[in-house]
């Protein structure tokens, strides 16, 4: 499976990566309320992954300037921009989102996951994009891998692996 590959490119928390090497697999671990936003151009075989933590950059201008990928509303446009700069075509992009988990009994107070998902949808709306696949919510934590050669997205959660795309 993609996650056992030795050719893994790890996307750390508050970071994003774009990869054009078809032998590589982008992976990010332990998504709780955070989200992994994935873009893939199947024609040119270019993959991108963001692991953002918080929905809105307005919480800290200083952090937003230094680590924009910490925030969904800043990280998502940056990933789109970087994918296009690397040669991807917007019309060919497939997008997916994984994570945005919630704690039991979450209300408006403790709903970072839901707020991350909402922030993502707003950014996609502004960029005239739709989600092709999602595995969000619930109280599971998730690890996700995107195989750059095939565009296959695999989600691992509580011992089970599922192919999302």
């Amino acid at each position: 499976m993609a996650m056992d590959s030795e050719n893994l490119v790890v996307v750390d928390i508050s970071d994003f990566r774009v990869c054009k090497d078809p032998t590589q697999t982008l992976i990010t671990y332990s998504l709780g309320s955070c989200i992994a936003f994935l873009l893939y151009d199947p024609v040119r075989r270019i993959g991108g992954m963001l692991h953002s933590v918080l929905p809105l950059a307005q919480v800290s201008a200083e952090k937003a300037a230094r680590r924009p990928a910490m925030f969904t509303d800043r990280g998502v446009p940056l990933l789109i921009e970087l994918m296009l700069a690397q040669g991807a075509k917007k019309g060919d992009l497939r997008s997916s989102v994984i994570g945005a988990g919630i704690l039991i009994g979450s209300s408006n107070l403790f709903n970072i996951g839901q707020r991350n998902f909402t922030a993502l949808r707003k950014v996609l709306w502004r960029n005239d994009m739709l989600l092709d696949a999602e595995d969000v919510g619930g109280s599971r934590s998730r690890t996700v891998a995107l195989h750059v050669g095939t565009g296959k997205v695999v989600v691992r959660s509580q011992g089970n692996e599922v192919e999302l795309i």
Partner: protein
Amino acid sequence: MISMDAILKRTKQIPSLSSSALRLAKLVKDPDSTAAHFEATIKPDAALTVNLLKIANSAYFGFSREVTSVKQAVSLIGLRQTCDFAMGMLFGRVVPERIPGYELKARDFWMHSIATGVLAERICLDLHLQVAEVPFTAGLLHDIGKLVIGNYLAESAGQISIRLEDTSKDFLAVERELLGVDHATVGATVAEVWHIPEALAHVCRGHHHPGEVPRSPHLPLVEAVHIANLLAHATGYGADVGGMARSFDEEILNRHGLSASKLEEITCQCVEKIEGMGQALLAAAGVKA
């Protein structure tokens, strides 16, 4: 179901927190403590001294000249921070390579503990909570019960995900169903056996459900670690088999005036410190990713 005798027996079998850690916990609360006192406590432990110097010379601090003694490290990074790193190193010694049952590697368990410590510190600071122990230490040690009951939980591994399909149930309730006890209660027992301060035993017992702990002056610290633990899970530090199946006490958030944006601000202010401290400690201790 596990008997209390079995828990006590197992607690005595696992490595316990060193006496240096207990001395440091006392020293850091003493306003008369000096760098020399710290050096005298740390220096007899050669491995700890070496690791602390590795950390003081790491990229996390980025000092332009080499730090060559504990005393110098204390003067450069401060008593409190030196103590936090020393506690982190000493705690790391009691963490096994894998914690069965919870499906946790040492690195992940350690990172969760560090994250909870850093977040608890920030919460206490931001909410101006008066607490009897160092919040970082309280966060660091809150899950020690897992070290004792992990082997027992592993015997029921197949049952955990089945029971968590009932999405109204939290992971602690599943532990109680399967073992008759949970890691929070066991953690308080471990704290007593290890002779760590009473406030920290309260934190171990109450970090999931602070309302279940008898009212005491330690409640603010218990509540701070409760919130910190949830934020650590939300940010994905140390996800175990229970995932995010943790419940929270909304009344505590309301009482402390914690809005959604305030919780996000606290998280935002802590992420880089968690990463930096975690990487410095793990690298110094040679823990594998």
